[in-house]
């Protein structure tokens, strides 16, 4: 290999360069090249007007009752490590205060604790991802803790893209262990184990369309009762299945994107639910966009949910002595509409957004009508502000 002044072969350097650049891509999918930090603040409040006359209860005066209020600041950090690894970490502190309804939408009883409930939830999670040429594998842990509820979870997920990057397969599994206590009953010490699997595929259908289908299955065993509700007895096993289909369509002349999805949910409690959602991302100039969104949700009641009894001797419990029973309105049949609008601003490495959503839940709005009777409409407002910076 010593230097010589012998004549060059024609194009020898060009040929050598081509053999180098023709190397296969070493890292088609690389770790995020930038880290980012995001701060978010969520304010949630739901309320109900008490208009339904329940047996043996005072005549409702139509007063508006604030129920749950949540104030949750959170921070999310993404840090790339080398070109193959990334670490994501999040932490949130929820301040939850208010009252969960004891019976149906009757708010007079609130929780059994005087003055309603007040709680603080601390939650955190860490996920480590190893990026490969056409895929990634991630391992995560998450914990959350309240004074009457502790939860911890581990997850494993992977994704793999075909050579043309048009098709991506996802697989995931997670295990959650919950510990349930109650401030009303210090002796309560229950457990719940949940294991879930998820599989999905994402397909690019051309320059402007992308579709995704996900299937999920979850098996839970243990304590499902609501410890703050009297005579709440639920099965100690719950199996849940979901089918989610998404379609994102880019509208070239407007530069906007339609995001739509349909989700079907069914579980062994007997609840079946449909969700359809659409959001329209409309950019204006390069630095800001507005996203109005609409979501409709409808569910059928759980098998063991019972409608309010008209017999004052029975109300608020279920007639007879069924093995399983609940009067939790979240297990009833209803429909709900969420209207939202989000404003996003971007400037260099900074992103800021503000989102407002109004949720309205009514029995009458169940798909096909005939939702559970005797429940007042529930409203919720959600405001979220966030700012993030890439570095």
């Amino acid at each position: 290999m010593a230097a010589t002044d012998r004549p060059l072969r024609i194009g020898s350097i060009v040929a050598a360069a081509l053999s180098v650049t023709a190397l296969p891509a070493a890292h088609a999918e690389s770790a995020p090249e930038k880290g980012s930090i995001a701060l978010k603040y969520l304010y949630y409040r739901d309320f109900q007007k008490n208009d339904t006359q329940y047996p043996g209860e005072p005549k409702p005066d139509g007063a508006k009752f604030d129920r749950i209020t949540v104030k949750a600041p959170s921070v999310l950090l993404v840090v790339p490590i080398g070109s193959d690894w990334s670490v994501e970490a999040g932490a949130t502190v929820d301040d939850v205060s208010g009252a969960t309804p004891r019976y149906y939408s009757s708010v007079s009883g609130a929780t059994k604790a005087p003055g309603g409930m007040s709680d603080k939830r601390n939650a955190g999670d860490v996920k480590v991802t190893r990026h490969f040429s056409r895929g990634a594998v991630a391992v995560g842990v998450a914990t959350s803790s309240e004074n009457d509820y502790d939860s911890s979870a581990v997850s494993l997920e992977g994704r793999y893209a075909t050579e043309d990057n048009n098709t991506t397969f996802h697989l995931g599994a997670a295990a959650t262990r919950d510990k349930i206590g109650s401030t009303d009953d210090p002796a309560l010490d229950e457990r719940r184990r949940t294991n879930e699997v998820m599989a999905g595929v994402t397909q690019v259908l051309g320059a402007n369309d992308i579709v995704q289908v996900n299937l999920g299955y979850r098996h839970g065993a243990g304590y499902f009762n609501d410890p703050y509700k009297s005579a709440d007895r639920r099965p100690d096993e719950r199996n849940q299945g979901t089918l989610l289909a998404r379609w994102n369509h880019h509208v070239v002349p407007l530069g906007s994107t339609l995001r739509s999805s349909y989700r079907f949910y069914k579980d062994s409690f007997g609840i079946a639910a449909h969700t359809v959602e659409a959001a329209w991302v409309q950019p204006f100039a390069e630095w800001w966009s507005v996203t109005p969104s609409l979501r409709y949700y409808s569910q059928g009641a759980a098998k063991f949910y019972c409608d309010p009894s008209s017999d004052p001797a029975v109300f608020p419990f279920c007639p007879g002595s069924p093995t399983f029973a609940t009067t939790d309105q979240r297990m009833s049949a209803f429909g709900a509409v969420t209207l939202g609008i989000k404003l996003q601003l971007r400037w260099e490495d900074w992103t800021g957004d503000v989102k407002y959503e109004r949720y309205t839940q009514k029995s009458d709005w169940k798909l096909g009508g005939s939702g559970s009777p005797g429940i007042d409409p529930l409203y919720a407002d959600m405001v979220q502000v966030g700012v993030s910076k890439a570095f």
Partner: protein
Amino acid sequence: MGDTPTMIPDFGFEFDAMGTVCQLRVCAHSQVLAEAAAQRAIGEVRRIEAKYSRYRPDSIVSRINAAAGTGERIAVDDETAGLLRFADTLYEASAGRFDITSGILRRVWDFKAARVPSAAEVDALLPDIGWFQADWDGESLALRRPGMELDFGGFAKEYAADRAAAVLHEAGIAGGTVNLGGDVSVVGPHPGGHPWKIGIAHPRRPGDVVASIDLSHGALATSGDYERSFEVDGRRYCHILDPRTGWPVTRWQSVSVVGPACLAAGALTTIAMLMGDEAHDFLRGQGVAFLTVDAGGHLHREKPDGP
């Protein structure tokens, strides 16, 4: 999606990497798609920058340099082996003019301070320069002398331009360009079929172009005595240093080469700058189109003879 191809717009992205301003032009149906592809290309440039940086103690280059003179052989990955094979070819084909061990000359050549080193200072470094003193077996490498250093600065930017263009192509982008501080790799022509017009900077009048070249495929690179240089007593000293003497070239103000890959074009411009009077013959021998500006400011332009 009934758009005719000519209606596909192109989107521009600018970022800093490789110590210079980098630009991407990406033809795509939407900003979102262009951005997604651009992000991958930018990621590829940054990956190469990090991998071959002398400033990162964990880079392969730093590990090789740290082991210089110890006898320890550093095994390299396939990508690095490919680039070292290329460097070996360049050294041989340029009769020692293109040498990736010549970077240590920057210890005495300070272009920011505009200081001309003494002949003794330069000569003291020459024993530690020479690719023939690297023990390279195709898979692992040892630098025999403790003062030696490898520097991929001579082609890392050009290689990154080619790789970024390849990544854009893999991301489904048919038309676009990657411009890393004047080293340009073309992804493909405008979807309408017309080529990209790429200006070549005038070596003496900043902001002016000396010529403009139409490119649909391939790459364009330019080396010049104006990029990092200073003048002392009416003499110009530029950053293109002959590793055999340690002193700057003087024959050409600039050399531009159009070739099938930016890695080739960039290496050829550097070697041509170092070749002096033989530059034109050398470039003809490589079968590439070129444009040179000689020391007197005269332009020479040639296209290879067709087969």
